[in-house]
């Protein structure tokens, strides 16, 4: 086999077209790796930078914005509450694989006594939609798209062209097991492409200061399997009794189907299984809640003080500041909006899990889902994060609201007792293993089929 490989290497390396293809693939993957690694580095630097105190709005802009403290010497509970630092979704070790997707998700949240769901300024990202429509150079996406094409190019006419020229007849007359030649050719190309994507992956990871060994390990296993799947598919296409051009076009068609049509169909099926609620219908519901709570504002204020008999207003109710008087209504409103908004995250989570289960049908989809998992921006983790943010928001409000309603002067002791957010980094190793096991089973099935059909390479 070693001799076959060395012969194949001579054949491979003496064809300048092969070297061009590998070189171009290396160039594009390196470009993508550098861009992705630097983008991940930038994301982490921004997340780590101390956030300047930024009120969601100020009095110059909004007359009902929280009052500013009279001076630095006299902070109030309201001013202290508005100084709470934003909460950020902590990225995981594989952020460099899918970093631009963080644009589409809200990864920073400002906790306050007002509903964060009704003000896009506190959580929405700013991005040019055209850039996402055109697509950026996310490493995982570029790899999932380009690697099959590099394989199609490198395996073009490997058997069919020799058949067309009559060389294959000669080969078969020289060996009783011509499939070994094909397997050696595929094996050599597999090793070369794997080296390219491993090098490119390591470049991307090296540029991201937050990379983890687990992310690298899972990713390298996955891409070696993805590579194997596509070489197995290429091997099966080499069996077809058609011309080399027709085989290349057919394989291109197959690539289009399992890379574009299957994920789109799975997306549709996931939506049929778990219907994503309508954001626009949610708007109508939110407005209904807003009107109801607006009408109940005074009642809710009275009820709040009645329920919290130990807390007395500092002034008669009619003289309360605007932010204090409106606080119970704001809390009530948020308690109704929050479950409405969480259902979107919950639906995304279930759809993601659905697509993971079926990712064996589209290896490229498996690569993307794994990248999301490793980056920590997958829908299940995001839904868990939002849940944690909601719980923290409750805890934070339980602390601040009584102080605001009682208008108690802010002290250093209270500052020390302010609740701190801590999102436990869930261990998603088993999910990652499940994803690459799916790829492994696909690879094994394809390789087994190729091995069973190996005698067909004898046909001249």
């Amino acid at each position, binding site marked *: 086999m070693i001799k076959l490989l060395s012969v194949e290497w001579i054949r491979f390396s003496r064809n300048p077209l092969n070297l061009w293809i590998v070189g171009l693939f290396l160039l594009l993957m390196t470009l993508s790796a550098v*861009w992705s690694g630097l983008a991940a580095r930038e994301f982490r630097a921004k997340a780590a930078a101390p956030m300047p105190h930024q009120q969601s709005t100020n009095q110059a802009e909004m007359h009902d914005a929280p009052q500013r403290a009279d001076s630095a010497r006299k902070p109030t509970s309201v001013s202290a509450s508005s100084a709470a630092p934003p909460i950020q979704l902590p990225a995981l070790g594989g952020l460099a694989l899918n970093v631009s997707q963080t644009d589409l998700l809200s990864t920073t949240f400002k906790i306050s006594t007002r509903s964060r769901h009704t003000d*896009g300024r506190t959580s929405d990202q700013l991005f040019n939609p055209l850039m996402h429509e055109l697509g950026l150079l996310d490493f995982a996406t570029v790899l999932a798209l380009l690697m099959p094409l590099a394989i199609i*190019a490198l395996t073009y006419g490997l058997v069919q062209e020799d058949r067309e020229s009559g060389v294959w007849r000669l080969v078969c007359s020289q060996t009783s097991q011509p499939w070994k030649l094909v397997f050696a050719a595929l094996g050599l190309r597999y090793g070369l492409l794997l080296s390219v994507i491993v090098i490119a992956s390591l470049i991307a990871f090296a540029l991201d200061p937050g990379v983890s060994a687990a992310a690298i390990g899972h990713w390298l296993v996955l891409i070696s399997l993805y590579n194997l799947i596509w070489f197995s598919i290429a091997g099966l296409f080499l069996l077809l009794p058609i011309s080399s051009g027709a085989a290349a076009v057919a394989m291109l068609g197959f690539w289009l189907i399992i890379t574009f049509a299957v994920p789109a169909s799975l997306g549709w099926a996931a939506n049929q299984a778990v219907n994503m609620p309508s954001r626009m219908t949610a708007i109508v519901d939110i407005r209904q809640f807003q009107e109801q709570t607006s009408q109940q504002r005074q009642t809710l204020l009275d009820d709040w003080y009645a329920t919290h008999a130990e807390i007395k207003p500092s002034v008669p109710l009619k003289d309360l500041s605007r932010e204090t008087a409106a606080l119970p209504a704001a809390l009530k409103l948020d308690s109704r909006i929050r479950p409405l908004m969480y259902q979107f995250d919950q639906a995304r989570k279930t759809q993601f899990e659905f697509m993971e289960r079926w990712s064996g049908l589209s290896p490229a989809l498996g690569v993307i889902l794994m990248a999301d998992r490793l980056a920590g921006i997958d829908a299940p983790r995001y839904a868990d994060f939002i849940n944690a943010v909601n719980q923290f928001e409750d805890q934070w409000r339980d602390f601040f609201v009584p102080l605001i309603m009682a208008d108690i002067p802010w002290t250093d002791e209270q500052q020390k007792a302010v609740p701190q957010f801590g999102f436990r980094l869930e261990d998603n190793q088993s999910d990652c293993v499940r994803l690459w096991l799916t790829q492994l089973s696909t690879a094994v099935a394809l390789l087994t089929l190729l091995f069973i059909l190996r005698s067909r390479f004898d046909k001249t």
Partner: protein
Amino acid sequence: MIAAIIRKEFISTLRDGRLLALGVSLLAIFIVYFLVSMHELQQLRQEKQSVGITAKEQWNTQSVKTPHAAAHYGIYVFKPDSPVAALDPGLRPFIGQSLWLEPHKRNLVRFNPSADQIAANRFGQATTSFVLNALLPLLIVALSFNSVSQERERGTLRMLHSLGIAAKPLVFGKLLGLLAAFTLVLSPALVVAIVVLNQNFTLSSDDVFRLIALLLLFLTYYAIFAALAIAASAYFQTSRITLFCLLGFWLASVFLAPRLGAVSAETLAPTPAAGQFWSAIKTDIAQGLDSDGNDEQRARAFEAKVLAQYGVSRKEDLPVGFVSLKRQNSDNYSERVHALHFDRLRDHFARQQHLTHLASWMGPSLSIRSLSMALSGMDLAHQRHFEDAAESYRHYFIDLTEDWDRERTHGTERSTQGEEADWRSVKDFDYKAPDIVFALKTAQLDFIVLIGWLVFALILLTLSAKRLTP
């Protein structure tokens, strides 16, 4: 002579098994994608309309409250999608679906559909535009990569040469024959699309012009691919190398150029962070632009001006509501600051769009995508037009509530109340999308790039004809 070549190429392309297999498959994909896109668009339009009506009715039926409290309830508006968007949804997946209009603040559109999707948009959208932009050029490559090289390999090129057929009419005849056959195969899909669109939507004359322009531009796009494919087939010695080069070009044009263009634009002109953007607006409102003074100085100056205007010494003695007057004054300033920053942001996005063309040397797909989005009314320029119209409407209805407040109160009173008749008197948001001239003006650069590619492809075809040897 050229007519005979066109006829021969036309017939042989139609008889080619590849056209039957690939053409029929793509036709089926096109029709399925189109029907799905159209169904989605129809649902979206209905939902936008019904939610828009409900949201306005919610505004109309608000309880009795102060006009300013009513204004804070706000109005939601939605951008109506053109029927042409069934062919290309453009930026829709990445642009928010709704815009909330409220006092004091100008908002960005919220809730982009891609945030709720899992993975489909990573590989492009499963839409008709994907078939038109990506798959049909591939069909052309598959049909034409050996159009000349096969003649050479079979020896028929030598025979044609010996018959005195010049190379130029030969390659141009092949181009026209191929395009004619391709158009014939494509026409059932176009007929289906037009009939279905006409049955499900009321097509305005502007929609029809947009569809015709789109068709002509896509034919230009396909002509570029066909010309380059035939030029490559004439230039390279073997079909294998031709196919490799053409697939490489297709890949570069369809998949790499848009991505590299986007990355170049984002690198050369990075989008500001959301925090920075909003913070700059707040700071400018609080501290004032140029030498306007800060908000307190502006408020004091305004108060003095109003008192002088009405000839009174105290706000309490004013014959109109001062609270509303003051609020309107600060809102006017806020609108000015918002307009400045929003325009800067949208100019920045437009600059990024122009910068994406740095990658247009890799292929014409980037320009046809921009043109297609523009003609479908789903590009940045159309979105900006809508947002500006919504902003004008915001000024209108906020000013109206302030007028009620100001006219019904005196001095520093805050007690005036509005009721359903007032809320109902606010006109509906009636948005008129711009016409095709606007779309073509905004896509001028894309058009120039596309035509540039056509000229380049025809020059290459001419040069390859000159070098053609049997």
